[in-house]
């Protein structure tokens, strides 16, 4: 049985958010990070959430992952309300969260281990997924011995090994250099074409959103609300040269217009899928 067949679950991964509001902070400092958001995402769809820093797009992602509870509204995945984190809803952070004390293979094998899969079996599964993300030869390295792009690939593999209904990505390529980022975008589309799962991808990079998404959801700054949904019409498989297409330019200009509207000029602090604390590496 190939990895592709095992991972394909096209019928699962439907998201319904109905009037979801999320509050962060305590007492007088509490504020509404996400306000009255309603979204429907089809199984297997790749949706990008874009918006300025602090607009609550990562908060919404955190709620989908089950790390933050909405204050009101309904958040359903395949009809069931989201209650806490679950391997069905895997999340990838901007900076990797690989366990430094485990090799790439053992990191990926963590999910199967939690499910009680035997050692030989879970190591084989991990090896297969690592092959899929192009890291078959690096399975025995520790995370510190991998480049930033490789670390994110292991992180994605570690989520995919659980055959998730949702792949939630919080600016996963935001910390990579431009060239690596482009390679990772192509790799993600390649993986997604073989492992159909619903992807919700948070970014503030319009080019990235246009290249990846079936649909772009543009959010306003605090409180985060949905400003507009844009269907991205480009044929798949996509190549990086779509950036030269005239329609790409038109859509990009439109997105820029939407994002430029800001009631006040002050930039907001970045929010994270875990709530307040900024999602950053210890060094930065």
């Amino acid at each position, binding site marked *: 049985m190939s990895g592709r067949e095992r991972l394909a679950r096209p019928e699962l991964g439907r998201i319904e958010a109905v009037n979801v509001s999320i509050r962060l902070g305590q007492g007088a400092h509490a504020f509404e990070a996400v306000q009255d958001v309603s979204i429907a995402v089809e199984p297997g769809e790749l949706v990008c959430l874009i918006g300025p820093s602090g607009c609550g797009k990562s908060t919404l992602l955190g709620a989908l992952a089950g790390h933050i509870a909405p204050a009101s509204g309904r958040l359903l995945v395949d009809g069931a309300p989201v209650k806490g984190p679950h391997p069905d809803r895997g999340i990838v952070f901007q900076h990797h969260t690989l366990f430094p004390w485990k090799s790439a293979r053992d990191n990926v094998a963590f999910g199967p281990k939690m499910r009680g899969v035997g050692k030989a079996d879970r190591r084989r599964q991990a090896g297969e997924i690592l092959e899929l993300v192009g890291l078959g030869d690096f399975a025995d390295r520790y995370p*510190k011995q991998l480049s930033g792009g490789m670390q994110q690939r292991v992180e994605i593999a570690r989520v995919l090994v659980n055959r998730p209904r949702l792949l939630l990505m919080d600016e996963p390529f935001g910390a990579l250099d431009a060239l690596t980022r482009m390679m990772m975008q192509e790799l993600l589309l390649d993986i997604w074409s073989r492992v159909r799962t619903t992807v919700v991808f948070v970014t503030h990079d319009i080019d990235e959103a246009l290249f990846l998404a079936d649909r772009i959801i543009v959010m306003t700054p605090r409180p985060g609300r949905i400003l507009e949904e844009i269907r991205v019409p480009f044929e798949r498989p996509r190549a990086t040269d779509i950036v030269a297409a005239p329609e790409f330019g038109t859509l990009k200009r439109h997105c820029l217009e939407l994002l430029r509207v800001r009631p006040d000029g002050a930039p907001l602090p970045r929010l994270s899928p875990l709530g307040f604390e900024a999602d950053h590496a210890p060094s930065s």
Partner: protein
Amino acid sequence: MALTAHSGASRWILRLVSIAACLLVWQAAARLRLNLGVVTFANVPAPTDVLEAAIALAQSPKLLDHVTSSLGRVGMGYGIAAVVGIALGLAVGRSRRAEDVLLPPLEILRPIPAVAWIPLAVLMFPSSEASMIYITFIGALFPILLNTIHGVENVDPRLIASAQSLGGTRGAILREVILPGAAPSIVTGLAIGMGTSWFCLVTAEMISGQFGIGYYTWESYTLQNYPDIVVGMVLIGLLGMGSSVLLRAIGTRLTPWHSAAGARR
């Protein structure tokens, strides 16, 4: 290559010369019974006397008794402190309830130096052996406990969140994420605790010992075998250093990802 080898060798020569010079100054000061007013070398044994005494002790059957009883006490007291300190540290670091229940009394006991426990310990425990082990335990407990708490509280919350998203239960996260995440800090606590437990043991032995290096050192003073005092001191230093080296080796073994740092190829 040749250049670095040469400079490496010359540095080693310099280091050895430095130690030799110190020994020479000590020898001269002791032989001349140098009196500097604030400090006098009149009763200080010379290095050659110490060497003689060391050889005599090495040939005596008492050496093994002294060393084994000290090692036994440290092993027992320190071992219990390691188990208790890490267990309590994990509980306090992970659970707010445990923190509220356990930490206040521990914080009150913490500033009391282990040596100050000696009189009470002698009254509390049926044998002087048990009281000495207790002192060693108290000496090692707090560095281990506090470093474990620190290590647990500093585990990246994103790692814990990821582990939850990957299906990790509370117990699995403790075992697979918290414990290894806190391991470097725990090893630091174990190393500091090793030093303090030796310090406390030697002090306790001086007061209520039958055998042991501390007892030997103090006995040499009361019997006016002054060279033996220095032999005892050197032995304490060697045993302390030996256990630290052993601990560091075990620590490196247990946290191999640390040494892999920066080894990107």
